[in-house]
């Protein structure tokens, strides 16, 4: 039964909703699009006040697979998030979060480890405290490791080995960058568990991963003053004995790798790409080239303008996708072709022909214009997407003390000319490519058969 008072307060809420809708036409629709940054006793944080009842909060640590000192550490640390801490048990964390209606997540990329939470705006203090607790007071108990974490790591390894796409991408990264960025995203052999990982090694890694200079807090949909206040309070006495993680400067190598696999066929043709905007060699033309090659249609009922989706129309058994994968100090332009062996083989040949045609200059002006527009949209859209935005912003703060600002990147993409795109395609072909074929090796072609330089 509802009491009278709760009904009354419900009415008030309803009235408030209506008054919120009565905003003047000239008033801004939401908070600022760019992040405001701050520093609380050495802990960097950024926030932006998107209007809305929920907040997304995350701790972004520079502790992705690239920085791990032993294989599998990042995966292990990720799975230790929200486990028993000095103050409360894992079960309690879960139950409390459920009662508040929140959502917890932990994931990693090659460069970052993200520990995140989504919740109602009012609960900000609780979750800021929780993140601080996870980072500084997690108990790395060996029974938690053997009972809960080892099975999870084994599952992720199985999942990784079952997917030809993940294997091919990982193999292309390994060819391109060897160590560092080339480290597989998930442990690729059982060595990680049997030889290198245990609760102590993970704890040691955590000390470095969660040292003050190595992570940043990013909030979406929270007032900056609130974030400043609570981060200041809960990260005040924050300290770990570690001194941060650092990797070597990435260098591009290139080469070819072929892996037999029974359950699918994937080829990845990867070339040296562009760093992120905060990195040393940012090349917006690579992003445009990726859009131009494309492969996936962005509109309904048509293959779209991108060259590879047009070319791929005659190979319905293969899906083609071109991505410009960007890291802080290196990048890859990768064409992923996935599907039945024969179609993958012919589509790969077609893709190489297309890149050569762009380098040769036989490309319509119209297409480049469309590619620029598409690249700009994709960039802005991915930055606006809260999850990718959080990781980019956090990484920007940790690496360079500067939040990732979309507007500048978009401007750079706008400034790309036709000449630059052709030049970029030419340099791709001049340097060594990283070619990885996973699947039916009898049919999948070698790099030399495709006419690529490895």
């Amino acid at each position, binding site marked *: 039964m509802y009491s009278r008072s709760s009904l009354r*307060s419900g009415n008030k809420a309803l009235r408030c909703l209506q008054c919120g809708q009565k905003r003047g036409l000239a008033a801004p629709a939401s908070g600022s699009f760019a992040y405001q940054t701050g520093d609380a006793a050495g802990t960097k944080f950024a926030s932006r006040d998107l209007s809305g009842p929920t907040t997304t909060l995350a701790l972004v640590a520079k502790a992705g697979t690239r920085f791990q000192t032993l294989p599998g550490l990042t995966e292990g640390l990720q799975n230790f998030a929200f486990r028993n801490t000095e103050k409360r*048990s894992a*079960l*309690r964390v879960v*139950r409390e979060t459920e*009662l508040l209606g929140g959502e917890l997540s932990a994931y990693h990329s090659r460069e970052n480890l993200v520990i995140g939470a989504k919740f109602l705006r*009012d609960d900000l203090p609780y979750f800021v405290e929780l993140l601080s607790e996870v980072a500084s007071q997690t108990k790395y108990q*060996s*029974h938690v490791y053997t*009972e809960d974490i080892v099975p999870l790591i084994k599952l992720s390894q199985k999942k990784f080995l079952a997917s030809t796409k993940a294997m091919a991408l990982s193999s292309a990264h390994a060819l391109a960058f060897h160590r560092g960025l080339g480290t597989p995203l998930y442990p690729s052999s059982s060595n990680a568990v049997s030889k290198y990982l245990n609760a102590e090694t993970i704890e040691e890694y955590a000390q470095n991963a969660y040292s003050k200079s190595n992570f940043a807090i990013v909030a979406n949909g929270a007032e900056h003053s609130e974030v400043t206040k609570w981060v200041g309070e809960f990260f005040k006495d924050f300290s770990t004995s570690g001194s941060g993680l650092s990797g070597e400067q990435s260098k591009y190598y290139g080469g070819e790798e072929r892996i037999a696999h029974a359950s699918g066929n994937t080829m990845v043709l990867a070339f040296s790409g562009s760093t992120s905007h905060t990195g040393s060699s940012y090349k917006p033309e690579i992003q445009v080239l990726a859009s131009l090659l494309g492969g996936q249609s962005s509109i309904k009922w048509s293959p779209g303008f991108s060259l590879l989706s047009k070319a791929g129309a005659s190979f319905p058994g293969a899906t083609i996708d071109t991505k410009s994968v960007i890291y802080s100090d290196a990048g890859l332009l990768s064409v992923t072709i996935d599907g039945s062996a024969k179609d993958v083989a012919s589509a790969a040949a077609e893709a190489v022909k297309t890149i050569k045609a762009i380098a040769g200059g036989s490309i319509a002006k119209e297409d480049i214009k469309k590619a620029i527009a598409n690249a700009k949209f994709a960039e802005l859209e991915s930055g606006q997407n809260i999850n990718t935005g959080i990781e980019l912003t956090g990484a920007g703060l940790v690496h360079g003390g500067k939040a990732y600002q979309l507007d500048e990147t978009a401007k750079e993409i706008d400034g790309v000319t036709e000449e630059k795109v052709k030049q970029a395609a030419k340099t791709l072909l001049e340097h060594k490519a990283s070619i990885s074929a996973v699947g039916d090796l009898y049919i999948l072609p070698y790099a030399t058969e495709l006419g690529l330089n490895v």
Partner: protein
Amino acid sequence: MSQPSLAKFVIKRPWLKRWMTPLANWYVDAAGYRKLGLRADDLIPEESDTVLLALKRLPPKEAYDRVFRMRRAFQCSLSHQLLPKEEHTKVEEDVPYLTPIIEEIEAELKEREDLEAMVVNKKPSRT
């Protein structure tokens, strides 16, 4: 399942403790497990999920030593013999190695039950 114990009750009262200690020492010695090289925690019945889980959580060295002590005790029992005096478990060796783990697991279970039985009161909205 840890053993029921009056120890806390007794330790709180120094006069009672002084009175009980010789009695306890006599009882433990008379129980005879030390003469078979066992420790008190080796006698905890294994037939419960809690204890089985606790045994899994023992560090490998402890688990190995436990099995060794038990096999030695079985052997002695079968051959109707006691260990030579120097191999008896010494008083300072007879420490609880399993009880802390069992207590930890019981605390976990209790917390789970408490959370399950919890009644949620919604706090008034802050705005």
